[in-house]
């Protein structure tokens, strides 16, 4: 089952959903709207090898925004920190952003239950796209789990800003 907007607001006030900053007016019929933060990660490695720590640059965008070229891939962040120990969050693009040819994640839309932090956005532009900090970029829905809950304790917990992949830590063996 997916929570309605009124249930998202109710569960926020019960402390079962954490979103910071939170504003009731940003709850939609079945989701909560998320803004784009101002921190971005651009990979520098010519070839990505999951066994090696990738080289990257962290940049901060000004109000004038940043331009993504067609085919460009960078990481961004949601301005909000979010998570829940009771529901499973799933991140979706805003359709207005998808209609500009922008993916906000390329594969993994589920956020583990118990995870909390700025959500990292996997930004991939199929057309040239201009992005501005604070623009509406994504939305999060909350789903009811079935079964005993084990909370997330993984390597991206308490993310502050976009997080580059840490897969090399588990691939090294």
């Amino acid at each position, binding site marked *: 089952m997916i929570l309605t907007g009124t249930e998202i607001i109710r569960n926020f006030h019960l402390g079962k959903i954490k979103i910071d900053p939170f504003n009731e007016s940003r709850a939609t019929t079945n989701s909560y709207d998320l803004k784009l933060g101002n921190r971005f990660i651009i990979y520098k490695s010519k070839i990505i090898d999951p066994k090696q720590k990738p080289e990257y640059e962290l940049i901060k965008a000004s109000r004038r925004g940043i331009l993504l070229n067609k085919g460009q891939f960078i990481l961004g962040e949601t301005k909000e920190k979010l998570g829940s120990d009771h529901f499973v969050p799933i991140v979706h693009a805003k359709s207005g952003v998808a209609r500009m040819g922008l993916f906000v994640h390329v594969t993994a839309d589920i956020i583990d239950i118990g995870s909390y932090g700025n959500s990292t956005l996997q930004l991939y532009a199929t057309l040239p796209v201009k992005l501005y900090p604070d623009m509406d970029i994504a939305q999060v829905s909350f789903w009811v789990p079935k079964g*005993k809950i084990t909370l997330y304790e993984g390597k991206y917990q308490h993310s502050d800003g976009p997080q580059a*992949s840490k897969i090399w830590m*588990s691939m090294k063996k």
Partner: protein
Amino acid sequence: MILTGSEIYKEVMKGNIYLEPFSRDQLNPNTYNYRLGETLKKFTYFDGEKSIFSTIKIPNNGYLLSSGQMYLGQTMEIIGSKKYTTSLIGKSSLGRLGLFLQLSANLGHTGIKHQWTLELYAALPIIIYPKMIIGQVSFWTNYGDVSPYSGEYGKFSIPQESILFNHNAL
């Protein structure tokens, strides 16, 4: 409702979810991690009607995916359930490296059990390794009577390119 990791484990033990091989340490709070099988298909050319793929065995020292290129892969595990609906997606650790896994069709039908075909698309050039953990699968409770899947892809365990043109050619 989406099953938690402990519920997935319970249902695997009861036989309501099939994951083979199964390893408990591949469970997440709400999903199960699957590995990449060794067979890859690479798009080579379009013959005017359909895309032609060539088959590659991924070597142990890895295979470099070119950016902007579409590949088909397979899960190492046989995955399925007669009771739940599956959703097959990637891992954030690989999505953060620009690797798409399943371009848009993540929904698996109740009743299918096979090695799933993966749609891989690399936004950046990236090396993949056989048996690496590449994605995750979630299980969802159904609402309503389940009519078993009668489609054509469920019988394939090798990466299977689209057979849509067979229908369109009629």
